[in-house]
């Protein structure tokens, strides 16, 4: 058992190493060492900075965060990363705490490196890696043909008569022939490249260097390209192990949340307890304000978790830790996105039945199906409730504002 565990951990390390290799092949700077990933799984530590940098690097290189935004955020990795992740559809508590926190108490609101690791996992699962690779390939392979936008005018409503059909068949055939011609041209190009390569081998090295700086440059590019494609291939082959490991990270995160400002291991197994103390209420208000957007993010996040096969009780875990005081009626709200999607619903049902004691959500899942009429009713109730809450919130905000304004009025401005 021990041995197999050790073997697994060695394998994981190799897999992460291959990921790191690929990340640097893609052109990212300052990629953390594989060991850093391992330590990040266990939470707080000095690794955070590296991950902030990595995430912001990825988001910038992939073009998720624009240059203007970059300039706007200045050197603040955290804001930039939060904004970028938000755009990719990722949600995590820490993103909002940062935003809501404003200037003061920044130190207190830091998030653990494990959370950042999860965010990295999300980005990879989202296909950012492929985006980076294809961007890099385009940069390296200068012979690559970038298709010109062809402005072909098609009738908005296609005519289904025999002559249009024949014309269409002709065009399809013509395309097929052109494809074949292109393929054979590619073959010929490979032949010629090979011939050039052989010829370059037969020249003495020095004359080769002098005569063909361009060729040399091309050679470097090609090598980079080969390296990149090879590392991507390697990664694709071992990716599964990485996701299993990521699943364990997520598990770890759910059963054992790291709270940065406190000792990391004191809260083991206390997922249902509010560990934020007095801030709980404030946080809930915050959450309520963002509820509609939050659902969207959460839905995606859940899909992500299911895709990767890890951490079944994501919802239960994160909800209980972040929203311990939600009303039962509110908790049913979280099941609604599943009502529309049969697949999700069954998965979630299984999920909950396997962990029946998890969180307040468990109570809402007593029946297998929710009839449409009932759902409508619930939704209406929910709407009323939310509207009410919104109004209350608005009122509170207005009061607060008035208070601030009245305080401002007391001030006397003395010109210098």
């Amino acid at each position, binding site marked *: 058992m021990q041995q197999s565990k050790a073997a697994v951990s060695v394998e994981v390390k190799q897999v992460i190493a291959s990921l790191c290799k690929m990340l640097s092949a893609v052109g990212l700077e300052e990629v953390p060492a594989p060991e850093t990933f391992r330590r990040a799984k266990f939470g707080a530590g000095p690794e955070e900075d590296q991950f902030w940098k990595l995430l912001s690097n990825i988001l910038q290189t992939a073009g998720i965060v624009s240059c203007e935004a970059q300039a706007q955020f200045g050197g603040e990795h955290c804001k930039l990363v939060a904004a970028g992740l938000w755009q990719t559809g990722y949600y995590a508590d820490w993103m909002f705490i940062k935003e809501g926190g404003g200037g003061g108490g920044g130190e207190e609101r830091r998030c653990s490196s494990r959370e950042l690791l999860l965010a990295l996992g999300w980005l990879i699962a989202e296909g950012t890696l492929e985006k980076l690779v294809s961007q890099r390939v385009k940069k390296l392979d200068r012979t690559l043909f970038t298709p010109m936008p062809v402005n072909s005018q098609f009738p908005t409503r296609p005519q289904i008569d025999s002559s249009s059909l*024949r014309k269409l*068949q002709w065009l399809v055939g*013509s395309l097929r022939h*052109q494809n*074949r*011609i292109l393929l*054979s041209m590619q073959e*010929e190009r490979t032949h010629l490249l090979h011939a050039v390569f052989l010829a370059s081998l037969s020249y003495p090295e020095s004359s080769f260097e002098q005569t063909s700086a361009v060729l040399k440059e091309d050679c470097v590019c090609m090598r980079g390209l080969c390296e990149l494609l090879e590392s991507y291939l390697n990664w694709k082959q071992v990716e599964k192990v990485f996701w299993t490991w990521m699943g364990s990270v997520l598990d770890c995160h759910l059963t054992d949340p790291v709270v940065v400002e406190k000792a990391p291991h004191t809260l083991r197994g206390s997922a249902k307890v509010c560990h934020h103390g007095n801030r709980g209420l404030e946080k809930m208000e915050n959450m309520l304000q963002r509820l509609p957007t939050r659902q969207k993010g959460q839905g995606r996040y859940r899909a992500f978790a299911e895709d990767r096969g890890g951490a079944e009780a994501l919802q239960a875990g994160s909800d209980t830790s972040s929203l311990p005081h939600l009303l039962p009626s509110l908790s049913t709200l979280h099941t609604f996105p599943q009502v529309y999607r049969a697949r999700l619903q069954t998965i979630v049902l299984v999920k909950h039945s396997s962990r029946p004691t998890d969180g307040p959500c468990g109570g809402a899942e007593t029946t297998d199906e929710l009839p449409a009429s009932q759902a409508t009713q619930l939704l209406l109730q929910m709407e009323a409730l939310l509207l009410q809450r919104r109004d209350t919130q608005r009122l509170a905000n207005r009061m607060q504002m008035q208070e601030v304004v009245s305080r401002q009025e007391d001030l006397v401005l003395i010109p210098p």
Partner: protein
Amino acid sequence: MSVVTVQLGQCGNQVGHELFDVICSDALEDQRKGYSTASCERFFHQTAHGELVARAVLVDMEPKVINQTICRSAKSGRWRYGETSHFSQKQGCGNNWAHGFCVHGPRHRDVVEELVRREVERCDRLAGLMAMMSVAGGTGSGVGAYITRYLRDVYPKSFILNHLTWPYGTGEVIVQNYNSVLTLAHLYHHSDAILVHENDTVHRICSQLLNIKHISFTDVNRVIAHQLGSILQPALTTDSNGIYSRNPLGELVGSLACHPEYKLLSVSTIPQMPSSSIAYSTFSWPGLLKHLRQMLISNSKMEECIDWQVQLPSASERTRTLLGSSFNTSLANLLILRGKDVYSAETGSFEDPALYSSWLSPEEAFNVWKSPVIFNKYEKSATLVSNSKALLRPLDNMLGKAWNMFASRAYIHQYVKFGISEEDFLDSFTFLEQVISSYNQL
């Protein structure tokens, strides 16, 4: 870019030999290096001693013709066939398509494939395969259809052009119509384009234009080879930017046969005359093109019997009389001009939309290739490869005769005994009827 030719059966081997002869003499005669290099690279490879060896595989079920062909090519002194690139057997197919398709084809498949593969590997880049055969006999048609199908599997990305010689209407072989129907129906599925020469037409060219008294197969084959050569020799296409096109078969197929229901190509060349008269004749491009255009619309393959009465139909006529008019509608045309002052030739008359089907515009349907090199001693020569209704009538005749025989079950047992059932016949009939109806709708 090279083309590998597969010569099948007696006819295929003889026509193939003439083709290589024409191409070789044309390539060596010309002083322009680019042209002859391109031509030689396309059809020959050079041995260490500088000999030209045809990129060809010879296949027949009888040894006689292959031996003759190889001997004649060696005697020419300019080029020869590869020493080991031929395959023959002792016993032929007895003009039975089924014997070739079901017995000889599968039995010798691997040997032939190996020969073809060797030739293909000698090419720097394969432009495509060209299979040459007749449709009347047993070996060319039966084995040819089988080998074409097999080559399509082995080289799915390559272009495959079939050159077919259609038999005399009066008949050389009693079951030629059966063989033709089966061959065409099978090739239609696997070939990219089917280039057709009719013996009757070529025979008339020999007698009326070339004034040959006693016409032999060699004369007929020379005419075919001349026409084929003028298509396949290097030429400048619209987008080749002054460099000889690298992919002759691809460009040919791509400009003429993109639609899966229309693959039959016919050829007409102008001028054709006895070699003794060539020196005393002068031609002008407008004159040649005017004749060629009238040959196209009146569907005559010879200058001599052009029907000048046939006119382009007006728009209203077109809708009224789809059938029965003598006007020959084209789906697509490829005009190949070779010779002096070729760049001054005005080809606008071929771009009239009335020449073409309603659903394909002339820009897509018409292409021109040009080459300033004099081809086969003709100062100016124009060849038109046309995907049109031209072959509709002979095809219809062939199908009708075959159907009449089939209706009385004549000779069917000869095919059934090798594994071609009546259903196979019926499938082929139906398929060709579909082709005919498609061409009729042009």
